[in-house]
């Protein structure tokens, strides 16, 4: 007796959702609920004797003292405000550098990679699978200024006539340079890949059409290629901006000085202190709200792109 296609499965509406159930349950219990824990701790009170945080799981018991305190600190002159603006500044510089360094690389690979394309791509992807910490360790080695054997960067600089003693990259005026270098070095592969994908999708016939209509190569680039890759630049920038907002290990590894600490450092420090949980949670909550717009923008554009790809 022949069965119409898909009928067996179609009769049971729960069949496919059932496959998703364990994963969705896991994410609800260990991704969504923990996020609520941030809210509950941030809005909670403190135990009167030890001053430890008491989470308020019931929204009716929320109190906003901690949040108000943190907002107050950010809006007035304080260490936290410095950290906040420093985070924005470092990220702005790092993302700009990623675009300037990364665009030509992605463009070359997508358009002129030729038979080297797979090799180029593999080497571009390789840093994805190296631990971030390993890559930072590499730069700590290169930049160090131990008097008896300075790192290779300092050795190279000492060989020039401009530098007479090893530069201390980890403290003082040079520390911000080292931290921004660390950020760019750490995150640029994540910027280049989505941009590459966007550039690679551009139909070559559109460029040919632009040339046929008399546009110069530069005109073709600025009026066809660049607008068509805008989505890729945005996607790449968002992808690297999100983790940079939560980065605390790069400033700590490259310097550790208060003069380069970012919002992430403030969060990490609060959570390591006894009784710092409410403050750490409030900061994390504010950070999340701050990046939520970026995240939602990104997810919506991914959803749109994958819908288009399937059609």
């Amino acid at each position, binding site marked *: 007796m022949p069965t119409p296609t898909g009928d067996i499965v179609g009769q049971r509406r729960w069949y496919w959702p059932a496959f998703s159930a364990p*994963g*969705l349950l896991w994410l609800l219990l260990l991704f969504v*609920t923990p996020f609520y824990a941030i809210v509950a701790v941030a809005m909670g009170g403190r135990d009167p004797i030890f001053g430890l945080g008491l989470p308020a799981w019931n929204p009716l018991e929320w109190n906003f003292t901690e949040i108000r305190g943190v907002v107050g600190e950010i809006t007035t002159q304080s260490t936290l405000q410095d950290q906040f603006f420093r985070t924005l500044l470092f990220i702005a510089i790092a993302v700009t550098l990623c675009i300037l360094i*990364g665009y030509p690389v992605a463009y*070359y690979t997508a358009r002129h990679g030729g038979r080297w394309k797979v090799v180029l791509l593999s080497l571009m992807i390789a840093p994805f699978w190296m631990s971030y*910490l390993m890559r930072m360790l590499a730069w*700590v080695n290169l930049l*160090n200024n131990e008097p008896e054997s300075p790192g290779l960067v300092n050795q190279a600089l000492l060989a020039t006539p401009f530098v007479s003693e090893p530069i201390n990259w980890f403290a003082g005026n040079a520390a911000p340079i080292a931290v921004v270098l660390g950020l760019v070095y750490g995150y640029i592969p994540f910027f280049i890949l989505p941009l590459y994908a966007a550039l690679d999708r551009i139909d070559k016939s559109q460029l040919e059409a632009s040339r046929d209509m008399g546009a110069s190569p530069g005109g073709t680039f600025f009026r066809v290629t660049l607008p068509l890759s805008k989505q890729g630049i945005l996607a790449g920038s968002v992808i690297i901006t999100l983790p940079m907002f939560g980065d605390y290990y790069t400033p700590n590894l490259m310097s550790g000085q208060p003069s380069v600490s970012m919002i992430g450092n403030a969060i990490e420090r609060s959570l390591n202190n006894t009784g710092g949980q409410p403050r750490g949670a409030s900061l994390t909550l504010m*950070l999340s709200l701050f990046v939520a717009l970026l995240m939602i923008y990104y997810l919506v554009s991914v959803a749109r792109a994958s819908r288009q790809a399937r059609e």
Partner: protein
Amino acid sequence: MSATTEVRTPDTTAPAPPPPARPGRRTAFFRNPWGKPRFLGVWAWGYIAWSIVPVLIAVQFSFNAGRSRSTFQGFSLQWYEGIFIRGSEQFDETLLPALMNSLKIAAMTVPVATVIGVALAIGLARWQGRGSGAANFLMLFPLVTPEIVMGVSLFLIFVNLYTAVPLGIPAMVVGHITFTISYVVIVSRGRLFAVGREYEEAAMDLGASPAGALRRVLFPLLAPAIFASAFIVFAISIDDFVISAFLCIEDCRTIPIKLYSAARNAGSPGLNAIATLMLVSSMTAITLAILIQRRFIRKQEGGQRSAVEDFARFEI
């Protein structure tokens, strides 16, 4: 076949074929803008060198005969002996436990994350009804949430609510599973879309039960993606720092945590050696993942793009 389409030069589109390029680079570019601009090539390969060479130098110094990390004093394996051989000259008792913790956590994360993730991917790919959009959205969120937010939230919930899971290795495993599930879904989903549902439907038309079609048709087709995602989960787990650091208290230091705490104050080629071991294990896992995908998918469909190129598209 793909070679012919790639080599095709768009001569036909230019009003007149460009005259042969003169030696000068700038003029060559403007005469034939479809040729390779050399400065871009130099820039791209320069970037690749900048992104890879520092790591290779770090690897090189793990073989240094001296203590320096910037002057190579001869080849030696003493720093590797210092990880494994108690009593050897450079023995550091903290390194081997870090390696073992990393491997232990990855070994427990891989099976759970892979099984849950593959099931989730199958469900999401085939489930069309109400709620599937929201489920898809939820699955994508861990990929874009800054790790510090996940780390803080998991730390707070284990301390304040799920106190049955102690901080340390158990909490770290749960944390790693949580943030690797989505990677498994992304990798498997690509394959599920490529396979389509025709094969299962054919199997069921021929009398297979839904479970039978799944076991005997879909799983074999999905196997490369399943193995590939297992290797990818392994690599991500080995390399993770932020989630581990928030959930670790004592006796659970992994290699990245060890690197973080010692890189600046107590740096030695021993650290480079353990970092190199970590690098080799995650790179091996990823190479296997790519090879598996490539070998099986090529065989079945004669795909034209390489697995690496496919991978480059996964992120979008």
